[in-house]
């Protein structure tokens, strides 16, 4: 009985739990509630994944109202994959976050923080589950508005401006998306994605549909933070509380990318996007540019969190590159990298959060030689960094390997060389961090202690997952490959 309603329950429960945090006004209880909500999302994702793997995509009519009238939920394999990712990251981050949040956020705001966290999670889960274009916009706004709030709670006053910056950019993006959805509705008279896919082909040469596509792509690219629409991201990640950086790096851009994939492949169709409009011609150079420019900027950052933020931009470039190659391996690489990068970046931000808790800053200048006093945190950063570079046996290698294979399949040797060269820049910025932590110029501060166990355990769970996903790829690549095939194969 409950199982049948799982597609909506997984969204509804965190939504109901969120106001509970607000009403109870107890920070510890709020944490427990947020943990329950996140674990619930994770459990639902696992259940849904097993069902979708066995029975194919799930359709669910909300309130029993059939599709054209009611709101339909539709969860396919790609959706399940991202749901699993979100549930996993949300649970581990919240498990980890307790002390970090107490340290970085004002006491009277802690329960509000957890409330926003649950709302953001709700938004993300909703985006993935829904089969309705307008609903995508609604949930996107829920998750975005709650992210703005969470970022503004950062320990530094600059968090406010970066949050405002994100708010402006994010709202422009959301408006574009809304315009696009409006245009599509005007042309087809439906908001249901499956119906849209059916009714769009005869209309695809009209200017309105093309304009809608352009608005949608630009709006979503803003949310994805694809270069050159990325300016909001570095500040937001740098000044947000550590827990928020870890959570957003692992989920929010990934979900925006998922929406992009969904519109490209299941609504507009491969033919329209890549044969008629040749989006790959724009997307490919932009992706490569993103990879290089962001990596190079990352090298020169003075703050670890900021460096990781720029590295995220570069990694997003890898993901869009996989889309731009328009073949199954490329799409597999994109999906796998979404998953792997979420683990890697989540783990790194969690480790950095540990440093922040003990030292109070994430600037390179104050981090010199602290690796000695915090060997486990340092270890997590090293392994996570190796993942970013794409060292074999870490998750990063697997996704890059698939990307290289996809590029070779297309005969795009320039892209292969670019991927490989960009990894070298990653070596530079990762190793700069490792060196800073490893070499101590100044006198050692003997009072420095290792991060608390409650933070180390989730961090290392994440790190172990990074290594595990780099060795046993059956789960990640297996699902991603099927999902990619389904996306390209079923495209209208």
């Amino acid at each position, binding site marked *: 009985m409950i199982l049948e309603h799982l597609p909506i329950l997984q969204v509804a429960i965190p939504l109901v739990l969120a106001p509970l945090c607000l009403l109870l006004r107890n920070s510890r209880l709020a944490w427990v509630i947020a943990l329950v909500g996140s674990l619930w999302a994770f459990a639902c994702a696992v259940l849904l994944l097993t069902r979708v793997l066995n029975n194919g995509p799930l359709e669910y009519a909300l309130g029993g109202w059939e599709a054209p009238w009611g709101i339909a939920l539709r969860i396919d394999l790609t959706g399940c994959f991202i749901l699993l990712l979100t549930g996993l990251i949300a649970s581990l981050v919240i498990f980890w976050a307790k002390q970090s949040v107490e340290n970085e956020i004002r006491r009277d705001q802690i329960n509000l923080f957890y409330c926003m966290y649950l709302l953001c999670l709700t938004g993300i889960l909703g985006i993935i589950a829904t089969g309705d274009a307008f609903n995508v916009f609604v949930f996107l706004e829920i998750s975005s508005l709650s992210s703005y709030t969470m970022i503004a709670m950062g320990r530094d006053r600059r968090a406010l401006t970066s949050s405002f910056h994100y708010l402006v950019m994010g709202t422009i993006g959301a408006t574009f998306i809304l315009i696009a959805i409006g245009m599509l509705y005007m042309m087809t008279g439906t908001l249901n994605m499956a119906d849209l896919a059916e009714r769009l082909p005869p209309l695809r040469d009209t200017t309105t549909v093309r304009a809608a596509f352009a608005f949608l792509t630009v709006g979503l690219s803003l949310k994805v933070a694809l270069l050159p629409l990325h300016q909001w991201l570095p500040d937001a990640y740098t000044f947000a509380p550590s827990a928020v950086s870890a959570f957003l790096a692992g989920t929010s851009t990934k979900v925006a990318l998922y929406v992009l994939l969904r519109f490209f492949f299941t609504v507009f169709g491969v033919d329209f996007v890549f044969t008629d409009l040749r989006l790959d011609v724009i997307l490919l150079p932009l992706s490569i540019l993103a990879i290089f420019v962001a990596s190079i900027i990352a090298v020169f950052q003075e703050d670890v969190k900021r460096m990781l933020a720029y590295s995220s931009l570069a990694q997003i470039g890898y993901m869009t590159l996989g889309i731009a190659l328009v073949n199954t391996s490329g799409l597999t690489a994109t999906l796998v990298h979404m998953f792997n990068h979420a683990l890697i970046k989540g783990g790194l931000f969690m480790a950095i959060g540990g440093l922040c808790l003990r030292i109070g800053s994430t600037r390179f200048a104050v981090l010199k030689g602290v690796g000695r006093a915090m060997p486990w945190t340092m270890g997590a950063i090293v392994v996570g960094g*190796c993942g970013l*570079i*794409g*060292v*074999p*046996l870490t998750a990063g290698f*697997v996704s890059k*390997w*698939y990307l*290289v*294979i996809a590029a*070779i399949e297309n005969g795009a040797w320039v892209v*292969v*060389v670019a991927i*490989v*060269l960009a*990894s*070298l820049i990653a*070596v530079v910025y990762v*190793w700069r961090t490792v*060196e800073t932590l*490893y*070499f*101590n110029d100044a006198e050692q501060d003997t009072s420095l202690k290792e991060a608390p166990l409650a933070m180390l355990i989730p961090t290392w769970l994440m790190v172990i997952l990074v290594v595990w996903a*780099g*060795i*046993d*790829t*059956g789960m990640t*690549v297996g699902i991603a490959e099927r999902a990619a095939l389904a996306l390209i194969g079923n495209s209208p």
Partner: protein
Amino acid sequence: MSTATTLMLIALLIPVAGAALVVITGRWQNLRETMTLLTAGSLFLLVIQLPGNVETTVLAELAPAFTLAFHVEPLGYVFAVLASFLWIITSIYSIGYMRAHHEQNQTRFYAWFAIAIAAVMGVAFSANLLTLFVFYEILTLSTWPLVTHSQTEEARRSGRIYLGILVGTSMVFLLLATGSIWHLTGTLDFQSGGVFNKNIPAAILAIVYTLFIFGVGKAALMPFHRWLPAAMVAPTPVSALLHAVAVVKAGVFTILKGTVYLFGLDTLSESGASVYLLPVAAVTIVLASLIALRKDNLKARLAYSTISQLSYVVLGALLANVHGIIAGTMHMVMHGFAKITLFFCAGAILVASHQTEISHMRGLGKKMPITMGAFLIGALAIIGLPPLGAMWSKWYLILGTLDRGYWSIIAVLVISTLLNIAYLLPIPIRGFMNGPERGNDTLEEAPFACLLAICITVIGCIVLFFQAPALVAFLNEGLNL
């Protein structure tokens, strides 16, 4: 799973377990060193038990066609035995050196040492290029803390060069070569005769082979050799391990293994894909020797000597014939023993007299006869005089070159031998002939553990001269060429 397979997998795990034990027992110095020696000893005993051929076992599947798989074949067997044996000796030496030199963070040192050996075992037993690549990278990363052990500004700089060149070449060239091999043949498995089929265009094969050879930065082929002298900043046992056994030998081993089992000797010699690289190897041999001649720092001179000697092995592979491969494999072993002796001596001199410059070593031989005597024998072994092992490898290298009829290469080998004499022999000659410098009166021999290690490797150099025919027979039979 057969017994041999199980033993092979245990051999991969032993050093990792050893590293864990070292960390656990880190507080008690003697216990910790016992752990290192026990691990090293049991690894060697286990490796030598392995048969020369163990079939492939898949440990994990990174992707449908890409597996993490291990096997044993003659080349890998020789490399694994060499590395595990010299690990024992280096450990004995380390104990003497690290204590006498009052090095910091010894637990970390021994732990990373063990991890590096684990990576070497992975390289030796890998059954496909992807697995080899994985462990090759792990070896680079795990030796970085060893190279930068002293944590000084100089160590930091050297660490950057070390990592930059090794990771750079492997990420760019080796990965590209791996990708193209997979693209061209659909497999990365090492198999006898190679994976390429005969009608591959010679030009493409040449490009892929060149990428492969330059991708193996650990073989220190010019112009990617700068990491080797940079890594000299490490404690001497590390230099000994890196430059005589683990890292550089992992490099040339990769080249030999790829040449035999991926590209295939027949394919290479028929297409002539390796010919273009011969001048590079020849230039490296001569140029590195010339640079060595000009270095006054003993470790730096030895480092350049290593660069030159490594190219002998590369040359053996590039000849792409049976004699060349045998010469390369033998030189891996012979040079391993000879060069580790020389490094041990350099470290012993440093510990006992705190001298690093050759010009300050006058008369040292009178105070440190065992060390200087061992240095002389090690030097003669590098030069290739009987009754020392390295003579055989040079002999086979010349045979291989003659098979191909490359007279210019013969000339290079002759010149190189003369240069070897010129840069190595003056050191013991100065040591024994000239009177001691002032201020050296209180000088004593190096710690016992160091001397013991030196004596074992010297004996090894001599024993290998007599055992060489057995090694050749083993390779001939096992490689089935």
